[in-house]
């Protein structure tokens, strides 16, 4: 039983880190619609680093994070600095990064098999799992109890108010977007290096968009995003187990859609619960002083 739960939970960093990363960006008022693409690029970058930079899985994960961070900087440069439309840029970067990951994979990478196991395990769960929990805890505390957290909430909710209180709106937004994208890149690298032990084409398979939905499902609250990610992790676990155990009486095609069905039901439930509390008022709105 314990073993079962651990093996289900081992997928948590993929969803959790991606959702947390998108959440940071959205909380500061910038839509990050490129989660899917940034994950794919992070996944590629991780395996690339593993193959070319000496085969340390830790260095490779870090490289995935850095590549995500760089894309985040690009995203914020285009939206925050150059005030381009966040939706257009978001979709553009999604296509660009996902396409680039696939292209570079076919041109640069031989078939790589990751053999190393990540650090020591507690309850059969690796350090990244615990680091993800820690990251959620940290973000929760920062949002609630630090001046930096107040600044993020203020910038997302009412950038004018933040500006007149002496907060640098652009700075807060680019830090949140870049750091958040770093987490998303890390989620992708973890997926390729640890879960699937290699890169394959289209391996992200909608997890980025799922993370995106979970952010809204969690009403842009740290705790909400956390529980949503955990919930979806279990749905994926249920899906893989049913595929094995379901045998002939449940069509496999149906089993595959279970997690996504779960998300739709959860989103609908969240919508039915009423108010859009928690969604920053200035999400997606560019701020200009004059």
């Amino acid at each position, binding site marked *: 039983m314990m073993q079962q739960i651990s093996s289900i939970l081992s997928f948590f960093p993929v969803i959790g880190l991606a959702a947390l990363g998108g959440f940071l960006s959205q909380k500061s008022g910038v839509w990050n619609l490129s989660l899917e693409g940034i994950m794919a690029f992070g996944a590629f970058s991780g395996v690339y680093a593993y193959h070319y930079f000496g085969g340390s899985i830790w260095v490779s994960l870090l490289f995935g994070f850095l590549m995500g961070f760089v894309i985040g900087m690009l995203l914020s440069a285009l939206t925050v600095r150059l005030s381009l439309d966040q939706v257009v840029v978001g979709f553009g970067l999604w296509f660009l990064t996902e396409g680039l990951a696939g292209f570079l994979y076919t041109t640069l990478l031989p078939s790589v098999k990751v053999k190393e196991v990540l650090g020591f395990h507690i309850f059969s769960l690796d350090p990244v799992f615990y680091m993800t929990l820690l990251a959620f805890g940290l973000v929760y505390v920062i949002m609630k109890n630090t*001046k930096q957290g107040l600044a993020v909430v203020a910038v997302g909710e009412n950038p004018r108010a933040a500006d007149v209180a002496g907060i640098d709106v652009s700075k807060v937004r680019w830090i949140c977007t870049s750091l958040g994208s770093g987490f998303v890149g890390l989620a992708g690298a973890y997926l390729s290096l640890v879960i699937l032990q290699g890169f394959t084409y289209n391996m992200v398979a909608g997890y980025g968009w799922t993370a995106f939905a979970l952010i809204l499902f969690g009403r842009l609250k740290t705790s909400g995003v956390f529980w949503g990610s955990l919930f979806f992790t279990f749905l994926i676990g249920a899906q893989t187990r049913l595929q094995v155990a379901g045998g002939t009486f449940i069509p496999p095609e149906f089993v595959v859609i279970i997690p996504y069905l779960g998300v739709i039901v959860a989103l609908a439930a969240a919508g039915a619960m009423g108010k859009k509390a928690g969604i920053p008022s200035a999400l997606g709105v560019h701020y200009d002083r004059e």
Partner: protein
Amino acid sequence: MRGVTKRFPGVVANDHVDFDLRRGEIHSILGENGAGKTTLMNILYGLYRLDEGEIRVNGQRVSIGAPKEAIDLGIGMIHQSFTLVAGLTVLDNIVLGREPTRGPFLDRKRAEREIIELGDRFKLKVDLEARPEHLPASGKQKVEILKALYQGAKILVMDEPTSVLLPHEKEELMRALKEMTGEGFISVIFITHKLPEALKISDRITILRRGKVVDTIKAGDVEVKDLAQMMVGRDVIFDIERAESERGEGLLEVEGLEAYNDTGVRTLKGVSFEVRGGEILGIAGVSGNGQEELVDAIVGLRKVTAGKVFIKGEDATNLSPKDLRALGVGYIPEDRMGRGVMPELSIRENIILGTHSQKPFANRGPLPFENMWFTNQDKVDEYAKRLVEEYNIDTPSIEKPAGKLSGGNLQKLILAREFSRDPQLLIADKPTSGLDIGSQEYIHRKLMEKRAEGKAILLISEDLDEVLGMSDRIAIMYEGRVVDVVQAERVSKEEIGEMITGLR
């Protein structure tokens, strides 16, 4: 501030403005909308950069490039539209940007202590745990004042602070400001377009007109009439002229009207009245006593849950806005940007909204369909230009987005559109709120013209002078009901004030 000049595309918002503030004084900046008052203060607060001129604070020449630098110089500003963050507590809002910390964490205990100390000193009591979005305007303003004081403001800029306040709240604010400046604790720059207020509260008054300083004078040396003349550039008629008008048939009748507000609470609880042709019925009441729901219900934007609306004797309950407009209902909404126009569309497009699919603006073209498909651009241009001229809308072009117009011009645009459809019944919801004297005068005159033509007008207003001056009869709304309908000439402002607050 010396020789301050700020240009925006097409206008000089501030033209070599000189302004000085002495320690412990209240100095009003008086001017109509668009005179450049707010621009000048935004420059001082680092929100705009000046093109020419210089600013000195305590004799030191300074360059203020961002609000943070202004705050560091001891300048605090309370904007006309409040800058509070919904979702954060009042306490968090006050300390935002100047948070006391212990280690990496916020020190909310210390913040609370310091804020309560400040509040006690100046009698500014607020609930620190509340959320600003649940506070009334006066409460939000107190939070803003505390925020500025907490940031260490020695110079407090207040942009039209009284426009959101009830009469007794205004008194309270003025008392608090007098007290703060009396101790020499802070100096206040008070932006307003209301003359009596400026006279009452200020030590000195600087009058701005079209971006230029007309004069700076001692408040004791001048009278309301002179001030108005300086501000507008011509004599102003204060009293609303009203001619006798024939009472016609009942054009609007509501009977036991009930409706729910957006959060599902029944806030309109059975309202009945009648408005006849040639009559203005004023609805007086403090905001939030059901007026909003009443207006929505009549213009078809909110479901009537009980009761009836009759227009020209016909049952018009729960008709669509389109059908109601066809029956001759004109609507001047309070929220001009949100409901009055589509801000992104041009003046010419906004001016035909609602009639855009009818002749002569639309025609069938070569298509064999019933509906009109093609816009006749020449006809629309001609029409828009004519109305812009007729209604004195001040704009360089009819292609300008409606959202870029000043409040007064925007309201004229809405008036032009609604009036040109020749409505029999006009719903005017706070038609002059936030407008300068010149525009107010214009709107009042236009409404009076419609009354003389025999139209029925329902006027909703919080401005008691307006309600008294304009209306034939006044319906007092309190907690979702019409508690009384009185003849305007038989009632005083004080009596109305007591009625709308439920004291009588």
